[in-house]
C-alpha cells in the first residue's frame, strides 16, 4: 500500500523532479551529500488503548492504558527511530518515560485523561532534530455504553514522518525496509549496496506484529479518503465549469437596463 501511493507527488515536487533550470543547477551543486526533492516518509500510528479495570479498579487506578508509537503496518520503526520519550502528567512518578528500543510502548494505570507529549529521536544518520507529537489519552468511550473490561477505548492517529532531504547513506541503509516509504529512485543514482540480510533479521523483534494489542489496532486505509476526495473534487470541478460558462454568458451580453421598480 504505501510504496505505490507515494509515487504521486505534490504539485511543486513534480515540476522540480522534472528539472526546471534553477533547481537542477542546485541539485548538481549539492548532490554530494543530499538528494534533492526526494523525500522519504515513515507512516506511523500513535495513540492509546485503555482498559477499564472493572472490579479491580480503585479510586486512583481505574484504568490500565498503553501509549505507543508503531509503524502503520506494524513494521519495525526502530530502523529510523532511536528513542521515544513519553511525557506524562506530572502526577505520575517519573513523568518522563524514555524508551530506548522498539516496540515503543508504555503501559500505566491511572484515572484521568491528559495530553501526552511524545518526542521521537532519530538515529544520527537520519536527523539530529527530534519530532514532537501530541496525543490526548482517552479513557471514557464516546457512546453511552458504560466502561467495559473487555473492550478498550482506542484512540489512534495516523501520521507520516517526512524527511525531505535524506542523505545517500541513509537511503542506502533503509531502502528496502518495509517500514519506510521511498519513492522510486532517480535513474543513474549510485548508492552503496543495501544492508545485508542478517542485520535486517536481527532487528525484526522491534515490530509490533506480535503485540497483544494488535487486535485493537486500527487499519488505516487511504483508499477511502482518496475516493471521497476524488468524488468531491469532481463535483467542485463541475461547478466551477458551470460558473465559468455563466460568467462568459454574462460578459457576452449587453448591459441590462434597470427595470422600473413598482412594488
Amino acid at each position, binding site marked *: 500500500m504505501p510504496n505505490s*501511493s507515494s509515487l504521486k507527488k505534490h504539485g511543486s515536487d513534480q515540476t522540480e523532479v522534472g528539472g526546471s533550470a534553477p533547481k537542477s543547477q*542546485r541539485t548538481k551543486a549539492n548532490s554530494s551529500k543530499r538528494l534533492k526533492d526526494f523525500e522519504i*516518509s515513515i507512516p506511523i500510528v500513535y495513540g492509546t488503548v485503555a482498559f477499564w479495570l472493572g472490579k479491580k479498579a480503585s479510586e486512583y487506578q481505574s484504568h490500565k492504558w498503553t501509549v505507543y508509537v508503531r509503524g502503520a503496518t506494524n513494521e519495525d520503526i526502530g530502523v529510523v527511530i532511536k528513542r521515544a520519550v513519553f511525557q506524562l502528567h506530572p502526577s505520575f512518578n517519573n513523568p518522563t518515560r524514555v524508551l530506548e528500543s522498539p516496540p515503543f510502548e508504555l503501559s500505566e494505570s491511572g484515572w484521568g485523561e491528559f495530553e501526552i507529549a511524545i518526542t521521537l529521536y532519530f538515529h544520527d544518520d537520519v536527523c539530529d532534530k527530534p519530532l514532537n507529537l501530541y496525543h490526548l489519552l482517552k479513557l471514557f468511550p464516546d457512546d453511552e455504553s458504560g466502561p467495559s473490561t473487555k473492550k478498550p477505548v482506542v484512540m489512534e492517529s495516523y501520521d507520516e514522518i517526512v524527511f525531505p532531504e535524506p542523505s545517500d547513506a541513509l537511503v542506502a541503509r533503509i531502502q528496502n525496509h518495509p517500514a519506510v516509504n521511498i519513492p522510486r529512485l532517480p535513474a543513474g543514482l549510485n548508492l552503496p549496496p543495501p544492508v545485508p540480510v542478517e542485520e535486517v533479521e536481527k532487528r525484526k523483534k522491534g515490530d509490533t506484529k506480535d503485540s497483544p494489542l494488535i487486535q485493537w489496532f486500527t487499519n488505516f486505509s487511504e483508499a*477511502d*479518503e482518496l475516493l471521497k*476526495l476524488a468524488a*468531491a473534487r469532481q463535483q467542485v470541478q463541475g461547478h*466551477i465549469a458551470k460558473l465559468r460558462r455563466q460568467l462568459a454568458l454574462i460578459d457576452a451580453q449587453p448591459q441590462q437596463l434597470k427595470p422600473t421598480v413598482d412594488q
Partner: protein
Amino acid sequence: MDAKDILGLPKNAVPIPQEKKPRPPKEPQRKPDGISRELYMLTGGVAPVMPSIDVSQLKKRPPSDEKVTWQWLPFSNSARKDNLQLYHWVRVVNGVPPTGDYPFAKYNKSVELVKYTDEEYEKYLTDPKWTKEETDQLFDLCERFDLRFIVIADRFPSSRTVEELKDRYYSVSRAILIARAPSPADVSGHPLVKDPYNAQQEVERKRAFSMFLSQTKQQERKDAEVLAEAKRITELRLLAKGADESELPVASDVSHDNIGRSIIPADAVSPTNVQATSATIASPTLVVENAYAPASLRMLRVYSRTFGLEQMVQAVSSSAGLRTIKRIEQTLQDLGVNLKPKVPTKAVCAEHLELRKEILTLLNLQKQLQYKDAEGSSYRDGSYTDMPGTPKRAHRAGEQDHAFIPECLSFGGERVGKRDQKRKGPGRVAETPGASYTLSTNDWGQLKIYYC
C-alpha cells in the same frame, strides 16, 4: 381613598410613616453650598473624588482694601512698527494701571532668513534656471510670508512650482551657510547642510501621496491583500534562510520591492492602471509564495505530514479572509470530507490540498458572478417579494444573500432547516438545472429560475 374605605384601613395611619422615609435619605444628598444645583448635577450628583473647584473660593470676594476700577486706556504694541495707538479696557488697581508690554507681543515671531549680498550672489549663487531678480523676489516673499511656500508660490510673479521655489531657497541658504562658515565642520551640524532639500524626491512623494489619497475602496482592498501576501512571503523567507534557497528569496525580494514601487509608478497613471499592475504583480507573488511553503518545509530536517499539510493549507488560504476560510471548511464538510484527513498519506494530502484550492476558486467565481449580477439588474429584489408561498424564506434570502450563495451549491448541507445530511452527492447535484446561481434557492429541492 375609596380603596381605603373599602378595605377598612385607617386613612392616615399609613401615609405618615411613608412620608418620613423619603426625607432622611434626601438629607445627605443635598447639594453643597457654593455652586448651583444644576452645576452640581453635572458631576453626577456626587462630589468629585478630587475636588476640582475650591468651593470656598467661589464666594470669595476680592480683598476689600484694593480698589479696582476698569478704565478705557490707550496701549501700544511693541510688535508693531508704526506706533499705532489703540484703546482697550484695563483693570486698574488702586489707581495704578498695569505695566509691561502688550501681552500678545511675544507671539510675533518671524523666520530668520539668510540674507546674501550681491557679491556673494555673484560668487556662489548663480544658477542657470534663476535670475538674480527672481531670486531676490523669492527671498523677499519668503521673508514677508515667513516661508509659507504655498502662499509664496501663489504670489510669485513667474509661475514656478512649490518644489522649485523651495529648492532654490534651500540651496541658496545652504550655499551661503557653507560659504560663510569659517570651516566646514562648524556648519555640518546645521540641518540644512546635513539633509539638503531634494526636489525630485518631494515631487515623487507628493504624487504618490495624492494617488494614495484618491484610491477607491477596491484598490485599498487590493493593496491590503498584496501587503498581506508580502508579509507572508517575508515570513517564509525568514524560514528559508539556507544557502540553497538564496535564489528564491532574491527573486521574491525583487517582486516584493516591485509591489512597493508599483504603488508609486511613474507617469500619468489612472487608478485602474495601478489596479492592473498591482493585480499582475499579485499573481506572481502568489505563485512565488506557494512555492515557499514547500521551500520552508524542505528546510526542516523532519516534519510530520499533518504539520506539512497545515503549512500548505495556510499558504493557499493566506490571501483569503477569515470568512472565506470558514466557507471553504463548510463546503468541505458538506462534501463529506474531513477537515483534517484521517489518513494523511502523501497522496491524500495532495488531493486534499488540490480540493481546497479548487473550492477557493469556486468561491471566488461565485463572488464574481454575484458582483456581475448586482451590476446587471435589480430584478432579484423585486421578484423576492412577489414570491408566493415562501414569504419567510424570501425575506431571509433577500437579507442574507451573501451567506446563501455558496449554499445554493450545497452538496446536501443543513444550513436551512434540519435536513438529512446524508444526501447522495452526485445524484443531488445532477438535479439542479444549470440556471442562474446567483438567484439563491429558497428551497433546496427546487431552483427558481429567473431571467438574468
